[in-house]
């Protein structure tokens, strides 16, 4: 996808995540389209475009989240994008399954980092059962959606 198109698509994904995706929740969990965009940017763009795009995704997510006093996503998304960018330089990620697996891992890492920092700074405790349910379903759901995107990308 064109780099300018990606920068235009990210705000639309953010708006979708705050509105329409609430009707597509499975067990109270919706896919993280902004995280998919951050990983996709790391996979397909040059660093000078990928980083601002991932940062934009992170900022938009922070702006639209109720409990994000820490601006955590603004930090995590560029780091994830940067990691994916360097990983793609070292390892061949030629097929959609490998890319989907990367999104799956990225969701888990993002969730674990978020929970740890939130617990350390604000003490907001979420019951273990609910934490595991969200991590498991969010990573599966997001990876599933990202598979469709990567499949389309490889076919086009």
């Amino acid at each position, binding site marked *: 996808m064109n780099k300018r198109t990606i920068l235009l698509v990210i705000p639309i994904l953010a708006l979708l995540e705050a*509105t329409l995706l609430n009707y597509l929740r499975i067990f109270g969990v*919706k896919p993280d389209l902004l995280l998919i965009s951050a990983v996709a940017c790391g996979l397909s763009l040059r660093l000078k475009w990928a980083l601002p795009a991932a940062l934009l995704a992170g900022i938009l997510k922070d702006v639209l989240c109720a*409990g994000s006093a820490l601006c955590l996503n603004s930090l995590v998304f560029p780091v994830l994008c940067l990691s994916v960018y360097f990983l793609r330089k070292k390892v061949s990620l030629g097929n959609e399954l490998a890319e989907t697996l990367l999104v799956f891992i990225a969701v888990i890492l993002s969730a674990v980092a978020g929970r740890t920092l939130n617990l350390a700074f604000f003490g907001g405790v979420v019951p273990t059962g609910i934490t595991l349910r969200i991590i498991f379903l969010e990573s599966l759901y997001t990876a599933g959606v990202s598979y469709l995107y990567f499949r389309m990308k490889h076919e086009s």
Partner: protein
Amino acid sequence: MFNFKNKKLIPYVVVVFVFLVCAGFLPVFRPLALEILGLPLKFFTLVSDEVKGIILYHKNYTENRILRRDVDLLRQKLNTADELRLENERLKKILSFKEKAAFRVIAAAVIGRSADNWSSGIIINKGSSSGIRKGFVVISYLGLVGRVVETSQHVSKVMLLSDSSFSVSSIDQRSRQEGLVAGTLGSTLVMKYLPKDADVLEQDIVVTSGLTETYPKGVIIGTVVDVGEELSGLSRYAVIKPAVNLSSLEEVLIIIP
């Protein structure tokens, strides 16, 4: 992997750092960004509602038929109630009873929901221009909804009571037992710090105690559905079903202190 000796990377790192400082950590930026997103959010909400209407067409149709029947029944009851209200007003005038509103409220529509799965919040279409400030309490006709956590001129963010960072001092309406109600991100809330001999039973109604700043006393939070003992054995907890269906909020009321 991260070769910082490579000087090409330095400008990127600097740009990211400056972006983060400017965008992420300056509190003035976020209300501005929220304000900018306000208008497209309203548009997307309209589109989402239409899509929802199409997806849930059959359910809505059936619901509509049942509701029409209910409306007819309620109209009959309303007529009777109107008579009683007028009689009540006449009697109050005779007794010179001054009617007092419990609190002043502003109505707002929900235009968005929290973008992630780790927080529970809504975005409403009223902001500081309507007199809304951070910390104001949000209710619906059925009970407590949450509190305002961020405002811009025309848009505000509300943290729902199911958010894990939310807590409010509460009281059992029947036994007057105090506790702290906190969100769990799930469909229920938890009333914590109840003594071992606390008189809290299933079906008890829990209301705000008025001890937490800005929260008026007596706003319904929910109903006790389960009572248990903490692992330590020193205190008990009660599981509460919120009075308000937090997943289908469309309009809310903001209390102006």
